[in-house]
């Protein structure tokens, strides 16, 4: 084989490897880098319609659930969301979106009856967000301009999650006053 061809092949191989690596990085990107994309990707069911998540005047807190596990370290996410729901201000909207492929309409209707945040619970298409989920879920907070102002990181405790978001709610709540 021509030595020039070998070099060319090696360069091409390097480029391919670099592209693959970049591709992987992109797919592992946090939604923070693609906030506008988030709202385009996630559709919630409202009756027979599918719509984007409506924005709050100040903050929009969204928790996606593809799965939940009661024995996982962060298995008490419902409690966290309920605490946030109870302490929210009118300028903040909270949504808990359950994957429509994993949770039936009946499941979500039951949750609305059982949990104390019925108007926040929705079924939705979150398939495209699957790579970003942490142990089947993701909590992310947007401002009124669809900018990500906070998002869940792996191994965060529920207390850390609650403290961080309630702090944000306070700041944004004060700003609006």
């Amino acid at each position, binding site marked *: 084989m021509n030595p020039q061809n070998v070099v060319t092949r090696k360069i091409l191989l390097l480029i391919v490897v670099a592209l693959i690596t970049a591709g992987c990085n992109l797919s592992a990107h946090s939604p923070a880098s693609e906030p506008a994309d988030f709202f385009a990707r996630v559709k919630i069911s409202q009756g027979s319609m599918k719509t984007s998540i409506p924005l709050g005047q100040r903050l929009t807190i969204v928790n996606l659930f593809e*799965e*939940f*596990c*009661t*024995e996982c370290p962060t298995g*008490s996410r*419902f*409690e966290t969301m309920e605490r946030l729901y109870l302490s929210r201000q009118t300028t903040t909207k909270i949504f808990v979106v359950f994957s429509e492929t994993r*949770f*039936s309409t*009946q*499941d979500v*209707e*039951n*949750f609305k*009856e*059982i*949990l104390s945040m019925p108007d926040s619970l929705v079924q939705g298409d979150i398939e495209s967000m699957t790579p970003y989920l942490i142990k089947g879920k993701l909590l992310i907070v947007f401002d009124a301009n669809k900018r990500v102002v906070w998002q869940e990181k792996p191994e965060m405790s529920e207390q850390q999650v609650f403290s961080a978001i309630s702090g944000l709610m306070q700041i944004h709540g004060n700003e609006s006053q």
Partner: protein
Amino acid sequence: MNFLLSIILPLALAAQVISAIPDAPVRLVPFYLSSQQREVKMKLAAPAAIAVARSGNIYVFDDGNSRIVKLDTRGNFISEFGQSGSAGAVKRAGFNASIAVDQNENVYVSDPVSPKVSIFSSDGTFQRSFRVPFPMTSIAVNRKQEIFLAIDTARQTELIYVFSETGKFLRRFGERLVRPSEGPDRALNRAIVACDAKDNLFVTFRSWPLIRKYSPAGTLIAENQFTIPSELISEPQRNSYSLDFFSKHADSSFVPPLITHSISLNGAGVGYLLLNAHSIVIFAPSGAVQKQFHFRAPRDRDNVFLRLVGDVRSRTVYLLDTRSGEIYQAPKL
């Protein structure tokens, strides 16, 4: 009635009974010996729960193999279902594994981890499943195919959640023993449930010696105490073993001991509790305790590893050894 019970019950509980239990012989007949099965698929691995259908067929939650095993009335292996990869695959549930069978022999399996309930027909065909927001410690089903779940959560909520056969949430009822928290007292509220042939619900607690009887509508009809075998609570612990103590000291390092393993009823409404320390409680259809005795566990196994279930057609009970996978019959308990 409820008002009357609310006055009487605290008095009854104050008179906590911890005492030695008399021995009584129990004849155990081998019914299904896992170790003697030739085919691998017939061997049980850490089976965790057992239910008997009206037909006499037996369903075993074979936890270690994540599947349900169906046996006939003679202890012959009929089939397996809910295996990994199949529709409605059963997940490992450990101590909180629970299984129930309705009048049409549909099989209800609780998954406390996901948490969800999966329903299969008697031939193992997966029918449907529904999700529950909290883990559960036990499942029961009545003649109307209403599904009763004993909920295990630190939230301020009722003890029992009821769903229709299609998975629609219907109602909740039942007072907890103590105000729930994430402390060791949470164990006190862990309940196990069984329905009688008249759709009454019987509830007992894993760590507290009480049998409650609820009407089909969820009204508390009776509450009866049984004796805690003295081996289960050491002398120094006895002063701390009260609902009052656990209510006031949710952060205590004293974890209430495990007392009750299983509850079941036969067709005549006679109920059975299997307690830790080789003790069986037999209670009347009213919920009143009739008899309590120690028995010799099969192969001298510690009965932390035993589950007991009554046959709805007779007074026969089945005893499942969760370590060996052996099932014994006690024809006359």
